[in-house]
């Protein structure tokens, strides 16, 4: 009996010929990630470990300042200081200060720190993003991260895999975000808990790396341990441009065992939107029958803060003004995305349309700062979570959608099907 892609990677990292779902393994890690929030707690836990003075391998740790950036108060500044000091003390070269990185999950692939077949753990639930590259990647809490800092290995329960098969060409204004919202809506908020999601089908073969990132990123929104794509020529080209580190491309066996197989006909999908207050409360946009005015549009995050996303938004906003009734906040995902957006004239288009462009970071998405919602406010956002209070007030409402749907809504002042737009063509 064969193994799934996740099982293959886990077996190799556990030094075993094969692993089966439910089995507990000790697996070697190729990279451990933390941000200033998870790192601060992890560093304290690491310092409490008897016998742990040095991290297992200073080249296999990445520390990214991204949640409260730039620091919003002395308390969060302190966490950033702690992480910076730890990076210096442990000679961790992959330390990304404010202005040198951006959102961790955008930065790590850009920097060539993620490659197919690798095993990555991180103190952030969206660490599953790196499944886009054919890596096993999962989020953990700070004490587990401290253990990985010390040992270079983690204990894991091998997850059963759910095979998602996507076929059909996406229609106009239907993007990876819509496909993934549909997936979360189909699986349910805990439909993949303790499971791996393995993405298959002609649609995902055609997807860009960014599209796969968007989809892997939201695996956790169905409770999954990881979400994973097979690496292909596109993946290998992307990674080889950024690192000369050797890597192993694994493939699921043809007789691998899947707990479930779910097929999604992408050709039949219209743009999707998650209504408040759960990411699985997903509807086709045609379910929005009445006017739903919004107060804030947010473009960014580890889900949709990439240059492709900003290009879509800029194309829609080009030569237009956002509705006077709302504000639009844009966070490019990283310094590199920011620079690229500057080079391509995207920033100018966005600012001319009336958008506020912030420095890369996670602030608005998790209700930290730089775009916090007030009582009774409604936001449509390209982010991944719309729980009560996620972006600020527990009395606010969050709708999740693609960059195109968010941009269309910004112009109209209300939730809008992007297929109804007339685009300015050059």
């Amino acid at each position, binding site marked *: 009996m064969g193994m799934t892609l996740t099982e293959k990677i886990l077996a190799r990292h556990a030094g075993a010929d094969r692993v089966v779902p439910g089995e507990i393994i000790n697996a070697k890690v190729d990279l451990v990630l933390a941000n200033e*929030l998870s790192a601060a707690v992890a560093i304290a836990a690491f310092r409490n470990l008897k016998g742990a003075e040095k991290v297992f391998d200073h080249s296999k740790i990445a520390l990214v300042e991204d949640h409260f950036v730039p620091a919003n108060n002395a308390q969060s500044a302190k966490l950033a200081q702690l992480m910076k000091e730890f990076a210096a003390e442990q000679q961790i070269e992959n330390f990304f200060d404010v202005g040198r990185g951006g959102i961790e999950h955008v930065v790590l692939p850009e920097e060539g720190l993620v490659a197919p077949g690798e095993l990555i753990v991180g103190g952030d639930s969206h660490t599953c993003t790196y499944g886009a590259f054919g890596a096993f990647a999962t989020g953990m809490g700070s004490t587990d991260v401290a253990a990985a800092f010390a040992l270079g290995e983690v204990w894991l329960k091998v997850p059963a895999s759910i095979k998602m098969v996507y076929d059909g060409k996406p229609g106009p204004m239907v993007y990876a975000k819509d496909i993934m919202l549909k997936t979360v809506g189909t699986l349910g908020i805990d439909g993949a808990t303790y499971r791996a999601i393995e993405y298959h089908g002609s649609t995902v073969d055609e997807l860009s790396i960014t599209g796969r990132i968007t989809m892997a990123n939201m695996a956790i929104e169905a409770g999954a341990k990881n979400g994973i794509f097979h690496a292909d020529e596109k993946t290998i080209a992307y990674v080889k441009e950024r690192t000369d580190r050797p890597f192993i491309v694994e493939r699921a066996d043809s007789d691998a065992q899947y707990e479930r197989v779910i097929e999604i006909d992408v050709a039949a999908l219209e743009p999707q939107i998650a209504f408040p207050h759960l990411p699985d409360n997903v509807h086709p946009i045609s379910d929005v029958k009445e006017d739903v005015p919004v107060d804030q549009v947010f473009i960014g995050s580890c889900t949709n803060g990439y240059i492709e996303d900003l290009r879509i938004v800029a194309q829609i906003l080009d030569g237009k003004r956002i509705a006077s009734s709302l504000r639009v906040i844009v966070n490019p995902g990283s310094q590199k995305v920011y620079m690229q957006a500057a080079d391509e004239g995207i920033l100018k288009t966005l600012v001319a349309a009336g958008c506020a462009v912030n420095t890369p970071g996670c602030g608005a998405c998790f209700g930290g700062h730089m775009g916090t919602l007030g009582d009774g406010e409604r936001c449509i956002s390209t982010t991944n979570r719309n729980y009560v209070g996620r972006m600020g007030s527990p009395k606010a409402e969050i709708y999740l959608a693609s960059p195109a749907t968010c941009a269309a809504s910004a112009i109209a002042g209300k939730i809008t099907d992007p297929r109804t737009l007339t685009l300015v063509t050059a």
Partner: protein
Amino acid sequence: MAAKTLSGRAHRYGKNVDTDVIIPGKYCSIVDPVELGKHALEGLDPEFSSNVKPGDLIVAETNFGCGSSREVAPIAIKGAGVSGVIAKSFARIFYRNALNIGLPIFESAQAVDDIASGDEIEVEPSSGTIRNKTRGKEYQAAAFPPFMQSLIDAGGLQAYVEQRLAQRAAGAKT
């Protein structure tokens, strides 16, 4: 290891109690557990921190702790004085975090169905026996998987990691 009996009133909630309502993002730079505890469950029940008494238990439906990996979520609950959480199921990362920081958690659908807010609850952590003293009923929480139980018996992840580090150091010397 005979752990102390947990005893207190139940605070009953629904399904999918996520980490954003357990401890909203804006408080995630707080380090002190007691200070975090003052904001525990603020997004779901703003009265919680003023109502909770030391030893009280949170009782909830499925998928407790879904969402982010923030370890401050179980720390805030513990910091508020809560002695344990009983739910029908837990989200994966929260489950690991709770065990790692020493917040006792128990899975029992039957107990959850029978418990109402304010019921007096007792739990024996070592056996997983849950008693609803208000209703005179007793339940058995699902046993931890053997590996988790061995981790708990070893004194938690910290002790486990220290053991492995000591083994490595001994191995390096020979």
